[in-house]
């Protein structure tokens, strides 16, 4: 008797899960984007003779079915929780939660990729920067500052590889100028308001005027759910996004070479509209941006080869420069840089995070 009841429960339970999800998925309207994952979701695949006969349709259909599955975010959270609490896995898809902060494992060091990144930097040096003052600095991943036994890349190993491939660059070691608290809890980036020591270190090494006594107004813009937040799929309290501002920064104008648009250093519109709130700094990703400082007390200019970390740091270097040109080598090929920039005797700083150097993505 009990056996029969058990079988009934199994059949009814299984059938309910199967048919309910089938029906709901069928009825539910498809979504275009996932806000938490910050990506476009797969849409119902095109039915053509080509897709049907090549197997593309079935692959695309599976992607679609997974992306549009009802309660997708909750399922992802469930998986993350299971992996963390039942399997006791230290990370979930490379991400892990520790003391309310989210981290991503950037490991192991990929020797070939770092060498390739160094080669790209060297190309720029050989082609444009001969005889100029060139500096480079590596931004450690935040896992580097964890005391626990998590895997992280040693910045000194990356430095060694780059030094061996590129000549005549002076290295600025900022590893001791940063602490774990200087990074966001839900994002990979550093907090602008905590960059004082980094700025001082750069100023010292590049023989710039020390600006540590310059006052900035810290303005809290709002809650910030960083990139890791959506990727991990667990509930964590948001960061607060702050910006440092003063008259010098406020008066600066930016010019984006791609969009040919001018703007301000801090783009609060972007903070409201973009899925990535970090876009507030210099309006987000761009191949080539120029920032002009009308209040500069100097004629000096800086060319900053950088990734996204550079967007929040650059405003804090403006006191020392009349113009800063920010180049992101992931979006522009170094061979055509000469068409846009007149390389004379500007200061040059390569500032890249380990995460970027460890991939082969510089052009």
């Amino acid at each position, binding site marked *: 008797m009990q056996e029969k009841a058990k079988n009934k429960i199994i059949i009814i339970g299984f059938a309910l899960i199967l048919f309910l999800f089938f029906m709901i998925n069928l009825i539910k309207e498809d979504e275009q984007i996932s806000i938490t994952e910050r990506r476009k979701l797969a849409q119902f695949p095109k039915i053509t003779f080509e897709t049907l006969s090549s*197997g593309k349709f*079935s692959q695309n259909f599976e992607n679609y079915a997974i*992306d549009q599955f009802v309660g997708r975010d909750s399922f992802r959270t469930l998986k993350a929780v*299971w992996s963390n609490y039942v399997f006791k896995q230290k990370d979930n*898809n490379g991400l892990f939660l520790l003391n309310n902060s989210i981290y991503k494992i950037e490991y192991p060091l990929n020797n070939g990729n770092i060498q390739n990144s160094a080669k790209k930097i060297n190309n720029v040096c050989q082609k444009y920067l001969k005889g100029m003052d060139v500096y480079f600095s590596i931004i450690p991943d935040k896992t580097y500052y964890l005391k626990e036994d998590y895997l992280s890349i040693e910045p000194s190993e990356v430095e060694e590889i780059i030094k061996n491939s590129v000549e005549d660059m002076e290295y600025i070691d900022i590893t001791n100028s940063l602490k774990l608290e200087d990074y966001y809890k839900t994002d990979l980036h550093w907090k602008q308001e905590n960059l004082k020591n980094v700025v001082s270190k750069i100023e010292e090494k590049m023989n710039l005027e020390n600006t540590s006594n310059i006052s900035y107004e810290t303005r809290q813009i709002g809650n910030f759910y960083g*990139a890791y937040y959506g990727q991990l799929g667990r509930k964590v309290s948001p960061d607060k996004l702050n910006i440092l501002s003063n008259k010098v920064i406020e008066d600066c104008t930016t010019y984006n070479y791609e969009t040919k648009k001018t703007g301000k250093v801090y783009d609060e519109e972007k903070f409201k509209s973009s899925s990535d709130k970090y876009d507030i700094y210099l309006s987000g990703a761009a191949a080539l941006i120029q920032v002009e400082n009308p209040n500069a007390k100097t004629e000096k200019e800086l060319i900053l080869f950088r990734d996204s970390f550079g967007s929040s740091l650059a405003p804090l270097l403006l006191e020392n420069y009349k113009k800063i040109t920010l180049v992101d080598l992931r979006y522009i090929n170094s061979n055509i840089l000469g068409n846009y920039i007149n390389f004379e005797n500007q200061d040059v700083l390569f500032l890249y995070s380990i995460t970027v150097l460890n991939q082969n993505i510089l052009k």
Partner: protein
Amino acid sequence: MVFSSITFLFYFLPVTLAIYYIVPNKFKNLVLLIASFIFYYFGEPTYVLLMAFSILSTYVFGILIDKNKKTQYAKVWLILALIVSIGLLVCFKYMNFIIENINLWLKHKIDFINVALPIGISFYTFQMISYLIDVYRGQAKVQKNILKLAMYVSLFPQLIAGPIVRYTTIENEIENRTHTMEKFAQGIRRFIIGLAKKVLIANVLGELCTTFLKTNEISVLYEWIYAISAMLQIYFDFSGYSDMAIGLGKMFGFEFLENFNYPYIAKSITDFWRRWHISLSSWFRDYVYIPLGGNRTSKIKWLRNIMIVWLLTGLWHGAAWNFIIWGLYFGILLIIEKLFLSKYLEKIPKVFTHIYVLILVMISFIIFNGESVNQIVTNITSLVGIGNISLTTPESIYYFKSYFIPIVIGIIGATPILKNIANTEKYKKIINILEPITLLVLFIISTSYIIDGSFNPFLYFRF
């Protein structure tokens, strides 16, 4: 289509089950046939025609063999039929491997042919061969209805990765099978257990193996973690698939034979192969080993028969030298056991026989997974620390901690401990309550793992 996909679980399966149980009995086979072709088409759009052609040829040859029963022509038709089926298998699976090896000796190289391996061809070809030989031997009645034969060959639960269901096993069920609530519930149970084995253990340990193969920080600890994980991964992957196949079979009224019986508790390599991929080893026994004379022949021929069977078993797994070496490795081990080792194995304490089997099987899977002879040798020698490698590295310690629980669950799951507890009379009451809950939770968790499998984080480096 694979079982562990959303397309299968939440589109194909509910629709197929609903239609299957709504239509009258006489249409059930047709529903299964159509569903099976759609299932195959989803994974292999072009080769669906190849499968259809194979079925057609098997059907025609089956009838010809049957018509000429008791005459010598039956044998001629059988040989022709075998040439066609094995010929197709060779063309699509082994041709480039053959060309590659011939080219080693040629000055003017032969070009490779442009074919991909049709999914499941090794399984369905072996099923068709078993049918043809059984008809020839008079052990199976010829199937005169092509739709029923096509349904048998293409039956989606077992089409892609076995078990190799013989025609004689389900001959009667094709004509007439019963559908009971008990069978259906059993089917669900087997299916969910299989799905969880595949998704929660095999796939998770698979990630670890992939990470290991990419590392450049080799250590003794890491090699052991890899060897054990690879061993568990392959078992849970394959036996999980068989569980799902058997479970689905039951849901549609079929009873397939078991394909695995806790192989990792075997007491000898001979015992291991009675427990691992049973449908394949029994296939080779009945259609190759015994026809060659088995062990009722001279010692030399007997040994030859064993080596032929294991060479073929190796080759069946794939067109590459490591599979051949893998097969021959087992052939040699089995010969050693049969000739003298087995009597010693019976006398020594059980724990040593288990260790003996596990170590040899573990090494076999290193060969199985190996990409080159060099890599295989390094993997094996590193297990005992040969080659100046460190005992641990931060990476190996990290992954050891991170995968400790899945590995332990895997080890426990590879033994009958849980099954024995579940079958204990005094726990019956509590098991009856826990079982449905556990199954449904496992189903939901497995689904969440499949959904997260698409985890495709937006490349943050846009900014």
